[in-house]
């Protein structure tokens, strides 16, 4: 098979992926107060990965990102469940969340919420799910 000349796509991807990733992290963390959140953040990260897979081939990407996305999905679900169970230790019912304000060195007065942990689980599950689906379909030759 002739190797396609996709140098522009490669160059653009190399610049675009970090930007997309940074933006996805922003989306994820701003979810508490602004548009965004675990679901969108996760999907955006997944789309960055998809772009990588499209621009470079699957094997190359897989050699560089040695992550099994099925495991990522499982970890996400587990994390979400464990955050729910975690509230038992504070004598609260399943999936109760709490938040408080802390003075952190660099960020100043910051709100930390347990809901973020749950959201991390959601994001990981979304990333794992979408990438696993895309990869398994695209590998099916």
């Amino acid at each position: 098979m002739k190797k396609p000349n996709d140098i522009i796509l490669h160059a653009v991807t190399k610049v675009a992926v970090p930007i997309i990733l940074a933006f996805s992290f922003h989306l994820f963390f701003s979810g508490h107060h602004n548009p965004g959140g675990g679901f969108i953040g996760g999907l955006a990260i997944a789309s960055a990965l998809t772009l990588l897979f499209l621009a470079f081939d699957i094997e190359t990407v897989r050699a560089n990102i040695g992550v099994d996305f099925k495991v990522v999905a499982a970890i996400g679900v587990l994390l979400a469940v464990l955050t729910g169970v975690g509230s038992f230790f504070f004598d609260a019912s399943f999936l109760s969340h709490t938040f408080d304000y802390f003075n952190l060195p660099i960020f100043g007065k910051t709100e930390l919420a347990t809901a973020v942990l749950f959201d991390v689980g959601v994001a990981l599950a979304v990333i794992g799910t979408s990438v696993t689906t895309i990869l398994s379909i695209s590998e099916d030759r």
Partner: protein
Amino acid sequence: MSWLHTMIVIPFIFALFVPFLYKFFTPRIHTGWFVFIVPLLLFLSLLKYIPTIAEGKTVYHSVPWMPSLGINYTTYMDGLGLIFGLLITGIGTLVVLYSIYYMSKHRESLHNFYVYLLLFMGAMLGVVFTDNVLVLYVFWEMTSISSFLLIAYWYQRKKSRYGAQKSMLITIFGGLAMLAGFIMLSMITETYNLREMFNQVDVITAHSLFLPAMLLILLGAFTKSAQFPFSIWLPDAMEAPTPISAYLHSATMVKAGIYLVARFTPIFGGNAEWFWVISSIGLITLLYGSINAVKQTDLKALLAYSTISQLGLIMCLLGLGSAALYFGYGDEATVYAAAILAAIFHLINHSTFKGSLFMVVGIIDHETGTRDIRKLGGLMGLMPISFTLTIIGSFAMAGLPPFNGFLSKEMFFTGVLNASQMNIFSMDTFGLLFPTIAWISSVFTFIYCMILLFKTFAGRYQPSKLEKAAHEAPLGMLISPILLASLVILIFFFPNVLSHYLLQPALIAILPIFAESGGIDVKISAWHGWNTELFMTLGIVGLGTFMYIYLKKWSGVYGLFSQRWTLNAGYDFAIERMERFSEGFTNQYMTGFIRDYVVYIFAVLIVMLGGSLWLFDGIAMDVSNDAPISLYEGGVVVGMIIAAITVPLAKSRLTAIIAVGVLGYLVSMLFVIFRAPDLALTQLVVETVTVALFLLCFYHLPEFRKATVPMRFKLTNLIISIGVGVIVTIIALSANSTRLFEPISSYFENSYDLAGAKNIVNAILVDFRGIDTMLEIFVLTIASLGVYTLIKLRLAGRD
């Protein structure tokens, strides 16, 4: 969380670590040594409860689990629970110790074995210490599942899989029936707690659901405890490794049904139906098991049938003893209460002698390579310790002194003799049946005990038929059966110690009327004069010996019954027919065309949504308060309509995909106009990923053909798509004008105060409706695993 709660949870938590322990320490240290600590610790801590319970106190703790549904994780310990707890952990300790020598650390996948074993232990402790019926049900089914896994431990063998499936089908069937019974009880009493049900016995007895609830719960108990005709699963369960047979299928799990009957005696006892069903089924099982045990040639099968028969004996005693509740407190009640005491006593005794027998059979199997009595013989001199242990075990089972089985057997005879003189429940007509059948079964029990002992150890040693040269087992394997066998003798000499500390508290738990009136004091003694019971025993020994000697002369009788009409044949027939029926039925609608499945899904959608709109009178369209439509909105909608119409008319697939994409992006545009940035963002990203997926699938799809679709399909598709469109439009329009449900605006108001979040959408997702989101990501993950396995499996199948 109290210590009692913690005890139930410990095995589950420890089970999590077993695979790692196995991975890191095999083959240096046998995984069993780590597991051994768990039951030992639990047993020792349960011992500490004995003085408290013996004083007549009980332990009760409650932790809210799902308070909104009235489900609390309530633990309760009384004498009955304590006995079972001690059996579970005590025999568990011995079985784990035994398994360390029985299960090879080089060949067996021990991590599976011990994880299942610990799951079972935790679940079984949960069953006996739980006060909430729904929690009890969950633990109950967990014991069935762990039993299934353990029977299928050697899943490479066809018979293991068959036995596992059989036990699973039968016990889960019973479990579901039991659940229905529990739900009926809670409908009557409006509580899920047993304690509170016990206070409403009058209400329950008067209710019309009394009998159905009782029968359903008994179905659960009978399937679990292998009562006739559900007993067929137990012999097939013998495919499990012998430590498991000793533990689950003789000492503990099969007694869960007995526990259930005992536990519910305060509610149902004292009624004729309860009395008759339990005592007659128990009696039939006793007879059926003992007669069938005699014809077995496999030692484990023999023990399995003997377990069935002994379980029937205990069940029968519980049934007879329930009459005590009919009389209320008094002399007559005391007479029948003795039957209950005998039941609990025999329960303990059976666990000791049957446990040791199973372990010895395991040793024989392990050291000679066979369990077939036609190949065995003459092991007396080669395996002297095993021989001694078998004498103790089988003589106890046959009901001979000086072993504990003698005491409980005598008490059983007392029970049936008393029952024959009963003048209630029309017992005056059938009363004599009880001692007669009990006596006949005991004769057969005696015969199979002798078969077990003499066919194995006496006679001629046939080394040519054995796989290995027989020799005595290592000491580690012998410790557990020796301990159990010494208990068999100790209990005979000091029964009243046991009675005072364990049996009487349990009796009070089963018959609470004695608690209010100062308890009951039953002395168990080995010698009670030349009475009927003793003569019955002498008769058993005489006739039993005679029949054993002339066994060959009459055992041909068994061949007279056709194999076609056995319970097993019936089971196999039913299973085969059911499989064929469900296969045919499934093939009717599982066509393999995604087209059809989409039709089902959307048809259900139309019926459910349209139906509920209709039923709840939800159709209402009120446009008077709507804002005027702006130019942008109108433009976007027109674009959407054009895109939507393009899809079905498109000539190529690529056009269709692009049109769908356009539609999606326009929707997100609409979200932007309506100032819903969250939705717009999500929609945009979803569209992007979907288009990527579409392009991937595009590669695999066949050529795009139009005309080949028959008219019938087109018509169905048209109806379905118009239906969905109409329903969704109606819902969208009505949503604004009807108030079927509470508005969600409270979330808007409270999100910052309650969740500290300014983004309401996210606060709803992760906090207010967190469980929804959690289940959603479950679904997502399962779906992606489904895609993965479908594709990978297909590839693997093709190669």
